[in-house]
Structure formats: C-alpha cells, structure tokens
C-alpha cells in the first residue's frame, strides 16, 4: 500500500496542552469509522517542557505509525510557532489549524533566543490553507480553558473525511462522563469556526 492511501494527521504543541487527548480522539474516531489506525507519541525526557508531537495515521491498512514529511493531510498546532516548526510535515494543499496561544520557551526567557513577534504573518506566508483561532478565548467562553484542544480539533476535522457522528462518538469516549457534553459542544464550536 502506498503512503498516499493512508491519511496522516500531525498534532503539535507544548507538554501539558492536551495534545495526547486530542490524538486519542482522532484515533478513536478513525477506529469507529471503520479504519485501521496507528498513532505515535514521544514520552519521557523529550516531554519535559519540550515540544510535543503526536501522529495519527488511518486507512484500510496502516503500516508505519510515523508520518513522513510532506504527507500530513492536516496539521494542528496548539501553540502558534509550533506550526511553523513542523510545517514540513504537511502535504501540499493540506489544512493547518493554529491556536494563537503563545507559550514562551525557556530559551526566550533566558534571553538566548527571540520569540517571533510576527508569527501570524509568518503562518500566513507559510501555509495556503490556514485557520488561525484563539481557541483559549473560545474555551473560556464555554467555561473551561482545558477544552481549547477539542475546539482546535473541531476546526481540524473539516480537513478530514471522517463522519461527524464518528467524531461525536470519538470525543465522548475519550473524556470523563461529566465532561462529555462540554467537549462535544467544544468540538462543534471548533467545527463551525472552519
């Protein structure tokens, strides 16, 4: 099977932003939609305050759990410059969804590096199909900052061929029962942003 027959998703951000939950939701959604699924994340030392990458691939039969550069149908970033860092994973014409949140890297805090102040302009220059959202603000409107990741996922879902009902099941299955309604709502808010 060729790489192109498998759909690849890359999610990036900084440790603690909820990348792994978002990855879990995509994977469960693809599974209930009837696809073979593989995911990969890096654990351990690479995680301490560092950038986090989660990769999900689904299709009739998936071999490699890793997404090759230039093949991701969608790229979701929970932090604005992380999308720029992993831009080469996106396939030509792929959809990028970026949360406008800034998390200052320690290298910037120490004065050893600069955080680009024109990140949005760089994003618009780098990507043709960009959805740039303040998912944190939308999440606070919904009453819980923690659902920013699911809002982002809602917007991202418009770039994938998975049915909406599968997404609802995926979201509902991956969160605690008391947060189900909130997260499904967050997903739909995100989907309507696209």
């Amino acid at each position, binding site marked *: *099977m*060729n*790489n192109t027959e498998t759909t690849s998703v890359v999610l990036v951000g*900084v440790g603690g932003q909820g990348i792994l939950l978002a990855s*879990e939701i995509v*994977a*469960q959604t693809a*599974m*209930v939609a009837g696809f*073979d*699924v*593989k*995911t*990969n*994340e*890096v*654990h*351990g*030392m*690479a*995680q*301490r*305050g*560092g950038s986090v990458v989660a990769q999900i691939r689904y299709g009739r039969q998936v*071999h*490699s*759990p*890793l997404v*090759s*550069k*230039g093949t991701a149908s969608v790229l979701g970033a929970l932090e604005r*410059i992380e999308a*720029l*860092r*992993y*831009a*080469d994973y996106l396939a030509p014409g792929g959809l990028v969804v970026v949360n406008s949140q800034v998390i*200052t*890297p*320690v*290298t*910037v*805090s*120490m*004065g*050893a*590096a*600069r*955080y*680009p102040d024109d990140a949005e302009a*760089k994003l618009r*220059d*780098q990507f043709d199909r960009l959805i740039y959202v303040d998912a944190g603000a939308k999440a606070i409107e919904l009453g819980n900052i923690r659902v920013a990741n699911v809002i982002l996922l809602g917007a991202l879902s418009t770039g994938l061929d998975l049915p909406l*009902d*599968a997404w609802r*099941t995926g979201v509902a*299955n*991956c*969160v*605690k029962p008391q947060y189900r309604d909130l997260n499904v709502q967050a997903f739909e808010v995100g989907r309507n942003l696209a």
Partner: protein
Amino acid sequence: MWILRYPKQIAYLGRTFLRRLLSANEAIARAAYESGVTVATGYPGTPSTEILENVVQYKGDIYCEWSPNEKVAFEVAAAAACAGARSIVTMKHVGLNVAADPLMTLSYIGVEGGMVIVVADDPGMHSSQNEQDTRNYARFAKIPLFEPSDSQEAKDFVAVAIRVSEEFKTPVILRTTTRVSHSRSLVELGERTANPKTIGLEKNPPRFVPVPLWGRPMRRKVEERLTQLKQAAATSPVNRIEWRDRSLGIVTHSIAYQYVREVWPEASVLKLGMAYPFPDSLLSEFAAGVEKLLVVEELDDFLQEHIKALGIPCVGREFVPGIGELSVTVLQQSRAAMEGRQLVPIPAPKYADELPARPPVLCPGCPHRGIFHALGKHDVIVTGDIGCYSLGTFKPLNRLDIILCMGGGVSMAHGLDKAGDPRTVIGIVGDSTFFHSGITGLLDIAYNKGCSTIIVVDNRTTAMTGHQENPGTGLTLMGESTVAASIEQIGRACGIQRVRTVNPYDSKQTEKVIAEEIHVKEPSLIVSRAPCPLREHKRVGPVRRIDPEKCKACKACLKLGCPAIDGAGAKPRIDGFLCNGCSLCEQVCRFGAITTTQEDAE
C-alpha cells in the same frame, strides 16, 4: 486523567468494537495477563515503563513490583520461573546491562515456567544515553529473541515466547523499540489461560546449582538447546515469507518491517519475528527465491553479518544507516541510492531557523533547582546521574560535568577524587537511582577513605519516567503501604559520619550546608528532600510576582532557569499560571521585588 483503560467497550452505530487501540506496552501487559503470568517485575525506564504500570490493573491475578534495580527484578522473575511460575521482567535496553549477570547464568540453569525478559531499545536515543542493540544479548546469552512490529504482535509474541520458554526450558527475550512500545494500533483481546504447573522449586541441585561439576553439563545443554531452537525458528509462524515480486527480497524485523512495506510495497519480504537463533534454512530458502537480497535492520548489522557468514550475497548497511532510527523517509533515501536516483527533498519549514528552541528543562518549582543554584556559588566539579537532574547540565544552571550511568554519579565522584582532581568533587544522584545502584558507590567512598560530598536529591519518586514508587516512598507498585527506606540511615550504615538533610527550597540553609560539607576532609552525604510538585499536583507555595517598581532588572532570578520567569522583556515577569510558588526567586532577589500575589498570599 483521561487514560483509556481496557476492557472498555466502545459502541458506534449499534456495533461494539472488539479491538482496542493499545500501545505495545499496554498489549504486553495484557498478554502477561492472558498468558497466565503470575509474577511481573521491573525497573522503570523509557520506553518500557508503561508495561508494569498496566500490569498493575491485574494485581488480583499477577503479583507485580518495582524492584530496586533491573538485576534484582531479573532475579525475582527468574526464581519464580524456576519454581514453575510464568513471569515477565521489564526494563529498558541499558537495564539489561545491569541484569546481564543473572541473564548469562540463567541461560545455563534454564526455567520451568515461561519467563519473558522484555527489553525496550531506544534507537535514536529519544530518552537514553546510548543506543545499544539488545539483539546482541540474545546471541551472547544463547537464548531466543522475539521482535514484534506492532501491538497485536507484541501481545501474540508474548504468548509464543512463553510457550517456547517452557518447551525449551529457556528464558526468552522480547525486544521492542521506542516506536513499537509507544505506537498504538488495534489489538484483539483474549481470555486468561492459567498456568497448569504446580508451583514449587524442585529439590534437585544438579538442575539448579551451576557449580563447575554441574555447570559444565549445563554448558553443553545450552548448545544442544540452541541447535533445537534454530530448527524451531525456521518453522515458527512468527517468521514468515511474504512472496511478492521476486526481483528483490528484503529480510527485515521489528518496526523496520512496517517501513519496508511502505517503501518497497512490491518486494518479497522475509519478516523475522524470532530473529535469534538465526533461522538458517528459512534464510537460504528466501535468498534462493529472489534475485537480489537486501537486509533492512535498525541499529547493528546483526542479521546481515550472519547472512554473509552463510555465504549468501546480500546488501544492507551499504544503503541502510546503522546510526539512529529508521523511518519511511530514511528508507526512501536508501531505495533511491540503490536505484541510483536522486530524491526531490521536501522543503524545510521556511522559518525554522528563526524559531526559538524548546529544550527540556527542570519544571517550575522543581526542588533540584535549589541544589544546582547553591552549587553555582562554588568552583566544584560535579558528577551527575540518570534522572531529571541531568537537566542541570544546561544553561543557565550549568552544574553537571559528567554523566555515565545509573549510580555513576556516586562512584565517579570517588574516582575523580582519587585521581587527584584539584577541585572539590560533588556527586549528585536521585533517590530512586541511589537505591538502584548508588549505595554500593557510597559504601566504596566510606570504605576506601574518599572525601567526596554526595548529594541525594530525594524528590520522593522516580520522576523522569513518570513518577513510579521506589524503596524510599513507602508505597508499592500494587498500592500497598510499606516500609520507607531511610537514605540517611543507609548512609550512616555505609560508614559515612557526616550526614545532613536540607530543604532545597530554603536557599540559605542549603547554601550553608553545602559550603560546610564541601570543605571538610572526609566524606559527607547531603540529603536534599522535597517532593516533586508535579507528582503532588499542588503548588509548593503561593504564586510569586515581580514588582516592576522595585525590580532593578539585575536578572539574578533568571539565573535559576525557571520556565515561569519570562526574561524576554526589559524587566523579568512571572507567569502566574506556570509559577509553582517555590519562592527561590524571592530568595535570590536582593531588592525585595518578588513577593506573593495578593489573592494567593493567604
């Protein structure tokens, strides 16, 4: 937490999904349960840690423990298997170096119940200090080795490994890699099969005691067993030939198989799930059926060397790198090189060079920071160890000079001291690492009249691997309360007269004790004790803020390397969301500009 635990049923459009999305680590835990394993041991190490963390959900059926180190874990599992129990022991690749002693002789003694040694390699060194290839240990110890390439195989191969272990009375290695252990794929679950054996070590010294008289016949049996295992490997269903186009045949293993299937979808493949002992007849059969033979293996050219030794022409290392991990991209380059083509490179991200790096750092409120900051006041040489505190190597703390291995932080301090390094030598080791293999080094310092200062940074957990219990925490893996070993008492029992305890959040006390201890001409042990705030899930104290009126922009607080302090502007600023309230910045500020925020100050 949202961690999805099986057996959770998922229903969609009226269908219930029987397969679960599991990492290979979760699948191995499930396999231990389904295969009738009753004893599971290990020491945490990325990427192997989650295996035992998942076995614990079956604690009604499986006794499981975090042992102090891999050698102990191995010996516990080995004895259980000698008594007829089915056991697994888990560790990362470097852990098997620690357990190599019992491994080499257990090969002679053998087992009665099935024993699987699960070893997770880390090609690419995502979280490790080297990238050794565990397949060499199988050949070294003359025991079989299985290599799954996804989670379903991880589960199935544990069951096969248990059967082979019992049939040939040999311990068996199951080798995963980071990408196998931490990738998730669909797995079909099964039921538990009980071990039919009655448990109890047979009183039969010639069978279990390898003194030379009985060890020599054991030695011969190991070779006979290897010959029989070779035949088993040639017919084992886990080694399979996939005939497709015969102009190219690829011998491959583990996760590399998955990449090969994408890069050479048309090629015939010999997939080795049981890579050792080498299935010679199968290798010959496959080689005879294809025009050209390519070996694609991650890390050492373990298979290729052997295939060449059989006199079979093949290529491999000529095109496939042996350093770092493989991927579809890497193998696409190999294929292009073989075919004399140039690949069009994927353009790099336009702005990659302008982006600030995000290196791993000590967390806000980390108790290790206080120790590194205090050490920064002295011209000392510091030997470090394996754990979060290895991050003290980097700017701005800059306080570690050499790291070797678990426990090395203690013994290497002694070595520098005895070599005559003109500076004062300090050794740093974590609590779990101290129990793992720091105690013997400390004993050496006391016994052999060293004068190093050893600091145990005791954060009450095994933090780097995700907060596992250890002999000092007072809790077992199975969640039971137990005795908590005292580092201070162990130090005194080793013969260290000067044992001090400090609170690393109290910089005055910490600095004073360190200044006193490094100048005495005898060994001393400083225990820096404060629990990891990440594990406690609460702030150390109230959130701090910087009063811009009082701040003189001297940037002393930035020397702490705390991610909560943003120094990008003219004057530093504390991110109230990230701040864990450890107060170190308040203590280093000479202008009283850092205080608790109003709302949190109660």
